[in-house]
C-alpha cells in the first residue's frame, strides 16, 4: 500500500523491453492528446460559427426586407457581398488587406484573454505602435528597404508593448482593473496622437491640418500581387500576421511562458501557489499583446496608409475583440475570424456600390454574428446541435 512514489519512472532504461513498449505507447498517446485539451473539435470550430454566420445573414436579410427591399434585392446584395469579398483578384486583395490588421488586433485580445486579462486597449496600442512606425518610417533614410521595414516594424512592436505593459504593470502593482485602464489609455493615445500630429517634427511640412510626414519608399511594405494588377493593395503584412498567429499558438502551448500565462489565466490562485509570479505574468502578457496590436498599427501605416492621421486605427482595436470572440481565443480561430470580417468589410464596399445597400448593414451582420457566437446555446437551440464536451468559455465577464 505504502508504495514508494518517486520519479524513478523518468529513467526507464532498466525496464524490460515489454514494459517499455507498452509504456512507450501510452506515453506517445498521452503526448498526442495532452496538450490538445485545447484542440478544437470540428463542431465547436466550424459548425456553431458557421450557423451563426448563416443566421446573421438571414436576419440581416429580413431587416433589409422589412425596410423596403424585395427578396431579389437581398439576394443580389448578398451576391455583391460575396463577389466583393472573393469574386476577383481585387476582391481577394481587399479582403486580405482588411483581414491583416484584424488578425493581429484579434490576437492581442485572444492572448490576453488566455492569460486572464481583458485587453480593451487594442485601439490605443495600435495608435502608439503606428505612431512609432511612422516616425521611423519617415525619419530614417539611406538604409536598404528590408532593414528599414524591420526597424519600423520593431518600432511598432515597442510602441504597442509599452502601451500594453502600462495597464499590466498597474494591475500587477496596484490591482487596477485592466478594463478601466486600457480604455483610458485608448483616449490618451487618441488625443496624444492628435496633439503630436500638429508638432513640427511629425506634421507634414506645409500643412496646417493634423497629418504626419509620409513614410519613405524604403519603409513601404511590398505589394505582392502587383504583377497581376499594379493597383492591388495586398501587402506582405498578411504573411507577417499569419506567422505571428502561428507563433502565438506555439507560445501558448509549447513554451514555459505560455504555460505560466495559461495557468494564471485559468486559475491565478493555483498559479500563485505553484510559485508562478502572477503579477509578472500580467505585465509580460500585456506587453506581448500590446506588441501584437502595435504591429497591426505598423502594418496599416507601412502597408496601406503611408502616413498617420487622427484616429487612423479606425476602430480596429474594438473589432479585434469581436474577432477574438468569434475565434474563441484560439490563434488559428482568430485568423479565420479575421478573414471573415475582412471579407465582410471588403464585400460590404462592393455591396454598397453595386447593390445600393448601405454598408451599415454589414456592421449589423457582424454584430449579429458575435451575438450568436457569444450565445452558442442560442444556435444550439435553433439548430439542435449537441454541445461538445470540451466547451471552452469564450467570455467570462469582468472578473479580473
Amino acid at each position, binding site marked *: 500500500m505504502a508504495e514508494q512514489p518517486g520519479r524513478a519512472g523518468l529513467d*526507464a532504461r532498466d525496464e524490460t523491453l515489454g514494459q517499455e513498449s507498452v*509504456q512507450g505507447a501510452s506515453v506517445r498517446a498521452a*503526448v498526442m*492528446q495532452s496538450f490538445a485539451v485545447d484542440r478544437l473539435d470540428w463542431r465547436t470550430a466550424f459548425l456553431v460559427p458557421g450557423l451563426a454566420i448563416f443566421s446573421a445573414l438571414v436576419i440581416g436579410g429580413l431587416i433589409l426586407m422589412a425596410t423596403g427591399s424585395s427578396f431579389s434585392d437581398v439576394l443580389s446584395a448578398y451576391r455583391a457581398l460575396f463577389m466583393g469579398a472573393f469574386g476577383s483578384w481585387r476582391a481577394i486583395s481587399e479582403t486580405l488587406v482588411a483581414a491583416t490588421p484584424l488578425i493581429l488586433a484579434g490576437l492581442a485580445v485572444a492572448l490576453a484573454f488566455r492569460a486572464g486579462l481583458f485587453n480593451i486597449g487594442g485601439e490605443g496600442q495600435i495608435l502608439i505602435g503606428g505612431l512609432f512606425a511612422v516616425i521611423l518610417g519617415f525619419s530614417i533614410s539611406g538604409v536598404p528597404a528590408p532593414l528599414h521595414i524591420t526597424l519600423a516594424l520593431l518600432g511598432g512592436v515597442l510602441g504597442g508593448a509599452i502601451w500594453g505593459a502600462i495597464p499590466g504593470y498597474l494591475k500587477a502593482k496596484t490591482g487596477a482593473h485592466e478594463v478601466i485602464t486600457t480604455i483610458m489609455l485608448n483616449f490618451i493615445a487618441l488625443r496624444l496622437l492628435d496633439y503630436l500630429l500638429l508638432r513640427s517634427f511629425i506634421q507634414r511640412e506645409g500643412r496646417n491640418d493634423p497629418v504626419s510626414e509620409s513614410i519613405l519608399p524604403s519603409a513601404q511594405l511590398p505589394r505582392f500581387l502587383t504583377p497581376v494588377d499594379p493597383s492591388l493593395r495586398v501587402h506582405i503584412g498578411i504573411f507577417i500576421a499569419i506567422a505571428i498567429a502561428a507563433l502565438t499558438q506555439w507560445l501558448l502551448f509549447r513554451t514555459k511562458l505560455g*504555460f505560466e500565462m495559461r495557468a494564471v489565466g485559468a*486559475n491565478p490562485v493555483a498559479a500563485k501557489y505553484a510559485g508562478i509570479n502572477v503579477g509578472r505574468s500580467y505585465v509580460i502578457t500585456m506587453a506581448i499583446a500590446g506588441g501584437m496590436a502595435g504591429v497591426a498599427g505598423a502594418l496599416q501605416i507601412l502597408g496601406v496608409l503611408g502616413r498617420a492621421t487622427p484616429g487612423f486605427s479606425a476602430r480596429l482595436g474594438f473589432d479585434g475583440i469581436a474577432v477574438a470572440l468569434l475565434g474563441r481565443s484560439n490563434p488559428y480561430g482568430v485568423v479565420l475570424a479575421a478573414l471573415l470580417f475582412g471579407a465582410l468589410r471588403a464585400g460590404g464596399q462592393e455591396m454598397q456600390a453595386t447593390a445600393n445597400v448601405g454598408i451599415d448593414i454589414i456592421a449589423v451582420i457582424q454584430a449579429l454574428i458575435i451575438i450568436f457566437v457569444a450565445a452558442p446555446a442560442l444556435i444550439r437551440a435553433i439548430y439542435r446541435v449537441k454541445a461538445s464536451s470540451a466547451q471552452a468559455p469564450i467570455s467570462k465577464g469582468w472578473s479580473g
Partner: protein
Amino acid sequence: MTRLELRGITKRFPGVIANQDISLKAEPGQVLALVGENGAGKTTLMNILYGLYQPDDGQILLDDKPVKFKGPGDAIAAGIGMVHQHFMLVPVFTVYENVILGVEPTGAAGVIKTKVARDEVIEISNRYGLAVDPDALVEDLPVGIRQRVEIIKVLLRGAQVLVFDEPTSVLTPQEVEEFFVIVKELRDAGKTIIFITHKLKEAISFSNQIVVLRGGQVVGSADPKTVSEEEVAAMMVGREVDLVVDKEVARVGEVKLRVRNLMVVDDYGRPLVDGVTFDLKGGEIVGVAGVQGNGQTELVEVITGLRQPAKGQVELLGVDVTFKSARERHALGMAHVPEDRQDMGMVGAFSVMENLILDSYYSPTFAGAITLKRQPIAKNAVDLVEQFDIRPPMPAVAASTLSGGNQQKMIVAREFSRDVPVIVCSQPTRGVDVGSIEYIHAQIVAKRDQGAAVLVVSTELDEVIALSDRILVMFQGRVVAERVTSETSPTELGLYMAGRTN
C-alpha cells in the same frame, strides 16, 4: 404511514447507470444517513427526489401516494426541502428577505408585507430553536448561521422531508454540534431528515438508520446502534478498510524546518499568527490541530512563502527563507499540498498531465530554456497516474472532470513524487472519499519513513491524531499546547482547541 418511499429508482446517463433499482423508506421523525463514496450516486438520487432529474424507472411515494416531480417546484410543493452544500443565499439581503425570496407575502400592487414576512420568520426560528436575527445581513453571518437561514427557508415552504447535502463539510466542530441539536429538534417535531455524508462518525452518532450506496446501488443498510465505523466503511468501499493508520515508531533525524516567533497580522494590525515557534525534524510527522480560522492557514502561507510575516523567521534546511519566494522554497526542497485543492492546488481547465507539472514545469526535467519537453512531461504523467492510482487513468482529461478524491491524489502525486525533505500538507483529505483517505495517509507515512519532515495541518482532530507523532494545538493564532501523540487524548486536545490554556 411511510412519509417517503423510493421504489426501484433507476437513472441512466450516457455510459453510466447512476442509480440502479434503489429502494428506501423513511418515516416521520426519522433521521436517515445516506452514505457512500464520491460517485456512488448519492447526489443523483437526491436530485431525483428534488425533481431536478426524472428517474428512468421506479417510483417516489409520499405518504403512500405515488408522486411525479417535473421540477424542484413540484418537489417543494409536495413538502420536500433541500439544503445544498453550497448555500443559495443573496449575501446583501437580510435574513428574512432571503427566507421569503420567491414566496413573498404581498398585498395590493405586489407590495411585500414586510411585517408579516418578518413575523413568519421569527415564528419558525423560535419554534425549532433556530436562533437567527431576522434583520442581519447574510454576508455578515458565519457559515453555521447561514445554514440555519437555509433551514428556515425550507421550513417556511412547508417542508416535511428535509434533505441535507454534506451539511457539516463547511462547519466548525462547534457548529457541527449545534447543527445536530437542530436536527434533533426537527426530528422531534416529526420531520423526516435525510442527510448525505461521508463522515461515518456523524452518520453513526446522529441517525436512526444508515443506508450505504456503492456504484449506484444500495449495498446495505445498518442500524447505527450496533454497527461500527469500520463495517460501514467496508460496505462503502467494498473491501476491508483500515481506518487506523499503520506506522512504526518514528526515527527522528535532524531539524529540517525551524520556525521562530512568527507573527502575522491582518490589514488592521490584529495578530493572526501570534509568536509561533517550533521545529520540524526529518522522519517525523507533526500535526497542527485547531478549529478552522485559528491561524493555521496563515501559518502555512508564511511557511510556504505565500505571505510575508510581520515578525519572526523561517529556516529551511538551515537557510533563512523568511523573505524567499514560494518558488525558491520549492526549489530548495519544500512540497506543499494546499488546503483548498480546487482553488489553490490545481488548474481545473488544465489536463491532469499539466497539473502534474504545475509547480515544476520550469525544471530542467520538463523544460529547456524556452520550450516545454513534451515527452518527459507525458512520461511523468503516465507514471504518476499509475503509481498513485489516479482514475480515470487518462493523463489528457481535464482535471476538473476528476472526482475530489482523485484530484487530491493528483496533487499528492505531484508534491510527493519529488524527493523533498520538507512536506507541508493542509487538510490533506478534506472532502475525499474513504478509499482515497486511506491511500493518502499511507503515502504521508511512507514519506516520513523515508526521512522527510512532514507538517500536517487539519481541522479533523481524528486525522491529526492518526497521523502525527507530535501535535501542536493552535488557538487564536498561538500554539497553546504541544503533546506527543501517545501521551495525550482527544479529550485533552479538544479542550485546548476550545481555548483552554495551560
